[in-house]
């Protein structure tokens, strides 16, 4: 059972030195939060502040508390206690290891003695990606999508932290729906940096970034359910076409089954 942790983020300043558009923000177990904003608006800096449990010592001046208090040093510096796992856009990877050696070393760092997590991690990773990853694969020979799939599975199974931070998972060409399904199981707080409209509107809260700071925090509640349905329809269609393209299909016209999907039925935007 994953530990229960509540984070409190105390506002810092944006690039022009103005106070951010919130005072403090609580992130509780089970929360899903998206972070949106143009490139360069400070989205990655926001999740990096959370990952390093900033104490007013980063460029943004934000402070992050754990369960209301200044976190003990081990929460940041010792992987065995760290309550946060971050999947970055960069998965450059330690090139000289096999998948097996890599995961084994990570189990040693995070969950010493739990070697059975090795096969659990790889099985989960393989539900996210098309071509299977094997234990003998070299980390460096994995594709971008396979690497990302493996890192997400690693964060869920080996790190198994109460807080998960994901930086633009949609770019990796992995099975997004399956990833989201896996993320939402359990009692984790999931924070996703995203440019994907569907991902952005399906989370409980949306943090909007502008010139290095949070400009607003939106809690749409039930008000955006029409948009969610509409986007789900578009997403289904795109998914359908993408998979057919991947299998080598050629389209000479828009496929019949796509035009009849219930997408444009009086949805008001």
């Amino acid at each position, binding site marked *: 059972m994953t530990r229960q942790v509540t984070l409190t983020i105390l506002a810092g300043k944006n690039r022009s030195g103005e106070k951010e558009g919130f005072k403090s923000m609580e992130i509780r177990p089970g929360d899903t939060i998206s972070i949106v904003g143009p490139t360069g608006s400070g989205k990655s800096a926001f999740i990096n502040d959370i990952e390093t449990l900033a104490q007013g010592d980063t460029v943004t001046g934000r402070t992050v508390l754990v369960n209301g208090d200044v976190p003990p040093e081990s929460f940041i510096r010792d992987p065995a206690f760290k309550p946060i796992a971050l999947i970055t856009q960069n998965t450059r*990877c330690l090139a000289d290891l096999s998948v097996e050696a890599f995961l084994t070393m990570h189990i040693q760092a995070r969950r010493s003695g739990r070697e059975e997590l090795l096969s659990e991690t790889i099985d989960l990773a393989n539900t996210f990606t098309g071509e299977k990853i094997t234990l003998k694969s070299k980390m460096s020979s994995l594709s971008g999508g396979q690497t990302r799939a493996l890192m997400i599975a690693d964060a869920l199974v080996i790190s198994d932290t109460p807080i998960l931070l994901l930086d633009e998972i949609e770019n990796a060409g992995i099975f997004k729906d399956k990833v989201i399904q896996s993320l939402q199981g359990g009692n984790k707080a999931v924070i996703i940096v995203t440019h994907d409209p569907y991902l952005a509107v399906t989370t409980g809260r949306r943090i909007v970034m502008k010139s290095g700071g949070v400009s607003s925090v939106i809690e749409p509640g039930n008000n955006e359910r029409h948009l969610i349905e509409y986007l789900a329809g578009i997403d289904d269609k795109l998914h359908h076409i993408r998979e057919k393209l991947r299998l080598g299909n050629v389209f000479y016209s828009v496929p019949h089954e796509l035009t009849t999907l219930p997408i444009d039925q009086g949805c008001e935007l």
Partner: protein
Amino acid sequence: MKLIIVAGPPSGGKTAVIRQIIKSLPEDALPAFLKVDVVHATEDEELAEEFGIPTKKVYSGDLCPDHMGILVLADALSWADELSRNMLIVESAGLCLRCTPYTTYSLGITVISAISGTNSPLKMAPLIALADVVVVTKTDLVSQAEKEVFRESIRKVVNDIDIVETNAIQGTGLRYLMRRIASQADIEAEPVTLRGAPPLGVCTICIGKKEIGWQKHFGMIRPLDMPESMYRGD
């Protein structure tokens, strides 16, 4: 005076870390900076311009830079002292990473980048084993799991060494390093000495002798089919 010795392989981010250290020092700190490099370095000029502090550089040429650093360190401490500075920061490029530059009464910092490969901490084991702190840079370029696996690899060299992870360009996470520097004691009256024994002797190759074959050299020599090195005097 406090002595801070920063070492590590090229492009690991030593200068970026030093820049962050100088930026975060308390107001009463008066740092001086010495750069030890092989043939070309500009860090002394950059740091002098950026922070207005006294800097110096020395090129080691045919000698290994750590060897050079050891030779000039006493002079450098006197230089900083004459300028009434209370901290000397030494940056050493290192070469074979065996002749470690750390001394008694210094804070020894190894800087190594997170993207340098899992086995690199083992390959530079003496440099890490004799240091006080390992600063892992470029952690923004790797995923969490990679960062933790890299940390595990450092812990294989020294299990309980102080590890600080940072993106040195932005200075994230360096508060732990600054705390170590703040608590670093001044140099005392006893002489400053090297922490570890350097590799045996300066060989004829180190001083620029070009011939190949052990028959042409003195000092520590080794033929191909001999398991141990042997010493041949001049």
